[in-house]
């Protein structure tokens, strides 16, 4: 279990990294925390000509909270996102979901950008990005562009990044303060990639009716899934258990993963329904708490 030969590059700036990406293109991979890439490399499941280590680029390691938007550098460690006080205050879904990634030890190495770029459909950060309508910031030779999270995840571990681009940051719009959030996942063991999971952010009116609902689901398809049908089934409806359960049924057609060692397809469908219902229920409870508190 040793990697095949590769050229190791450790640029000190984003520009330098983009230059290397332009030079090596599709034959290069970016090394951030290495929590997914290094096992793949050691098992020779990937064979890049060049490995571009971005760990020395300080510009990628910043968290910048603003009133309406939170920008997180691609090199920020997951444990920093999990424990950053302003992140928890502005977007409490993020630390809650991030705390479910792997184990404390892996979160100390794993990065936000690495998880997004690896794009495992069972991973927490891609799912929350989709749920929160985040924007991915990519830098290439011709400059910076932004990609909606919805458009960023293209397929199983496949993103919209071009071969010469480097993912530099992710921008999360800050939800209204009264919003409630929920995050639920089911895994065989703590720290395993989830069999299914859901993130939800909801807003309720004074009568407890949904004014906005945003639900993302992980682990059920090639990409994280935005549960549009669930959301539209709830808008304007009362936040009752019956309504939530009925709406959660709408996720079932989106479950495309087949049988594997850890779940049958039927079980995943069942879990998808369950996590959606539980995440929305948790979000509603929090929204009620928040409105009671203010």
């Amino acid at each position, binding site marked *: *279990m*040793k*990697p*095949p*030969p590769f050229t190791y590059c450790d640029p000190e700036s984003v520009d330098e990294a983009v230059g290397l990406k332009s030079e090596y293109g599709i034959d290069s991979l970016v090394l951030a925390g290495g929590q997914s890439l290094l*096992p793949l490399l050691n*098992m*020779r499941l990937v064979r890049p000509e060049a490995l571009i280590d971005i760990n020395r680029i300080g510009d990628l390691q910043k968290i910048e909270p603003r009133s309406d938007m939170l920008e997180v550098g691609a090199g920020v460690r997951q444990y920093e996102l999990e424990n950053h006080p302003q992140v928890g205050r502005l977007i409490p879904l993020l630390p809650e979901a991030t705390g479910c990634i792997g184990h404390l030890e892996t979160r100390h190495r794993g990065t936000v950008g690495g998880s997004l770029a690896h794009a495992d459909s069972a991973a927490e950060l891609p799912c929350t990005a989709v749920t929160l309508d985040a924007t991915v910031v990519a830098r290439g030779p011709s400059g910076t562009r932004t990609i909606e999270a919805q458009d960023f995840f293209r397929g199983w571990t496949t993103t919209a990044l071009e071969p010469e681009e480097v993912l530099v940051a992710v921008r999360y719009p800050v939800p209204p303060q009264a919003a409630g959030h929920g995050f639920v996942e*089911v895994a*065989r*063991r*703590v*720290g*395993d*990639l989830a*069999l299914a999971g859901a993130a939800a952010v909801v807003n309720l009116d004074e009568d407890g009716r949904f004014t906005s609902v945003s639900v993302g689901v992980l682990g059920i398809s090639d990409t994280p899934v935005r549960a549009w049908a669930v959301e539209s089934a709830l808008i304007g409806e009362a936040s009752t258990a019956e309504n939530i359960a009925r709406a959660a049924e709408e996720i079932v057609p989106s479950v495309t993963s087949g049988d594997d*060692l*850890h*779940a*049958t397809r*039927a*079980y995943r469908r*069942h*879990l998808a329904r*369950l996590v959606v219902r539980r995440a929305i229920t948790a979000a509603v409870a929090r929204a009620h708490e928040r409105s009671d508190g203010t």
Partner: protein
Amino acid sequence: MTYTYIGKDRRRVEDPRLLVGRGGYIADLGVPGMLHAAILRSPLPHAWIRSIDATEALRLPGVVAVLTGEDCKARMNPCMSFGPATITQYPLAVDKVRYVGEAVAAVVAESRYLAEDGVDLLKADYEELPPVTDPMAAMEPGSALLHEEHGSNIGYERTFEFGDVTAAFAGADLIVEDTLRWGRSAGMPLETTGAVAQPGFNGVLEIYCNSLNFSYFVFLIAATLRIPSNKLTLRPVPAGGSFGSKLAAHKVPTLAGFLALQTGRPVSYVEDRIDHLENSDHHGCDRIYEARMGFRADGTIVGLDIDVVDDYGAYMQFGVGHHGNAFSQVVGPYRFRDVRYRLRAVVTDKCQQGAYRGFGSEVHNWVLERLVDEGAARLGLAPEEIRRRNFIQPDQFPYKIPGGNLYDSGDYPAVLDKALSMIDLDRWRAEQRRLREEEGRHIGIGLATTQERSVFSATEFWFLLEKPTFPLTSSPESATVTIDPTGQFQLLLHCQSMWGNSPETVGATLLAEEFGIPPESVNVRYADSAHALPGTGPGGSRYTAMVAGAIRGASRKLRQKLVHIAAHTLEVAPEDLELVDARVQVRAAPETGLTIAELAATAYFFALGLPEGMTSGLEESFTYDHPYTTLPAPDGSDLGVFYPIMGHACHIAVLEVDPDTGMVSFLDYVAVHDAGTIVNPKSLGGHVTGGATQGIGTTLYEELAYDADGRFRSSTFRDYLIPTAVEAPAFRIGHVQTPSPFTEYGIKGGGEGGRMVAPAAVSAALDDALREYGMRVRQLPVKPWEIVATVQAGRTAQGWV
């Protein structure tokens, strides 16, 4: 019997070096000029090897050699095996591959990186054969054959009957019948198996390895390598865990030795994790049972009828020893006398079975307990009550069981009572009802009482065979105790014992007990095979009891010498002296005496001060044979005494099942074990914890899965799920001590016990949690979706949906 050091919690003397990273493991071992090997693993479950083209690999700078099965066939003999002679194996597949992951070729290079680059460049050409994966189908006449020479995929078939099961069942009020399936799991030590072989002094091949009870097996490895056994030295290297997987992991040192002989240079071969998962030769049992148990209305068990098919994988290195092992405790702790046991061992396109904590008897325990639980449920008896009614009683020992083995001693009601005293079952049962009614939660309570046989003897390797070729009866263990000229103690162990129950701590504690010295002051060393006295090594929970016999024997001789030197020096009769706190003193006048250090100085430096006829030095060795082995009857009607040192345990698990996800979490877990006299409760507790956690793994998480096409689906830890500290319950451990009448100090083995019990207790708790839905665990591991499906079906039947 009261002891000063034995029986006290003691920190392991091994720990300081391990905790600061100075374990000295095989992967850290460097030898000048050492090469590294990597293997090409078969991508196919079953195929003829047409050709292997190494041209490109050999062209890669740094690649020194490529060896294949053709080289093995030409220049070595098949690997050691206790299985049928018509099922042979080499370290590299010869002629055909028989499972995904089987080693096909080895590339030897200047570094492991280059060796793996070389493997990438090999071109192997195969002719695919139909995969044989289902053991039932494999027995059908039309099935493709794994071993043409053997002529069948059935490696072994025989029915044993002790007593008269038909007659016993005729008198039964209830016969419980079930199909039970135990899935494949395996020991997963942090460190895989590895070896470094080098051509050494005088043409001796030296193999450093972290595996293999070498003093038992060294001549077999030499025979495989076609060298005289005095030209092969195996050197023990610390092992980072085994759980059985290193017991007789012969292929790795054999391959490293072969590669060193072929290249004339030192070669390191260390399995990587994929090698270990796919090609370790140490997958655990994989069995399908048709099992029946008869009961009288009062719960008395009258008999057991088993028809088991065991999917051994591609080879049978231990024959069917795993079933011999089950015969050691075939009736469990219960009194019934009639047993029928039909065994069919089948070869399939999977990695072969080896040893894993329990060695087959843990499976039998699970089957027994599954049947007892079903009987209890059908007869309306509490699980503890049906067991109490069937226990062999304390005054019945020594107790000869059907089949021939003997239980030395025990107090099973005391173990059950102790477990029940540690957990308030009435309170839990009330809480179970309350949580179900008030909060809709599903709590389950499971109880199991099982045997934990210990201290194997060698007859189990062959007594199931109709015509054994090598009916071995020895399984000794040796120790050498040296007191140096300053009075410091050295303990030399004569096997690869760097796994098992903390042998250094055990040895140091026993020497402390014998001589009154601080245990931490003892230095422990390991002999290599060229210097080793007879030894068998850890396995079958034998090492503590066996090495204790050896250490006590050597200590007795050494104590006698000390006393005679003191008697001579002090001019008193030896019988008037006693050894107390590292000092030989006059019984009647304790102020008169000589310390061990003073006596050691005389022993080494003042020969003229020694009694007449005594020679200089203070070193004694002792070889301790198995304390109680008898020969089996040639016709198989009685297997003899082979595993008489019998421990016992009771586990009670309390868990909660989420009926919507099928996920399980533990609320409480009590484990009480009787392993006779305990040397170190702390380390035995560690064994119970680890073994029970592995039992939970086998029950709920771990699966070495092959699909119907023979593809292996568990080749990383992303798919092979080992329970971690998070999944493991906070075990509460209790001990009962019923000394063995047959071993020194009354010690019994306890290394495997946790895994002997936990699957039964956890299975029972799952049934109990979901009883209203008709839950019945019949197959391990239990998958969460099976739990959800049972709940859903149950709810549908009850008209919920």
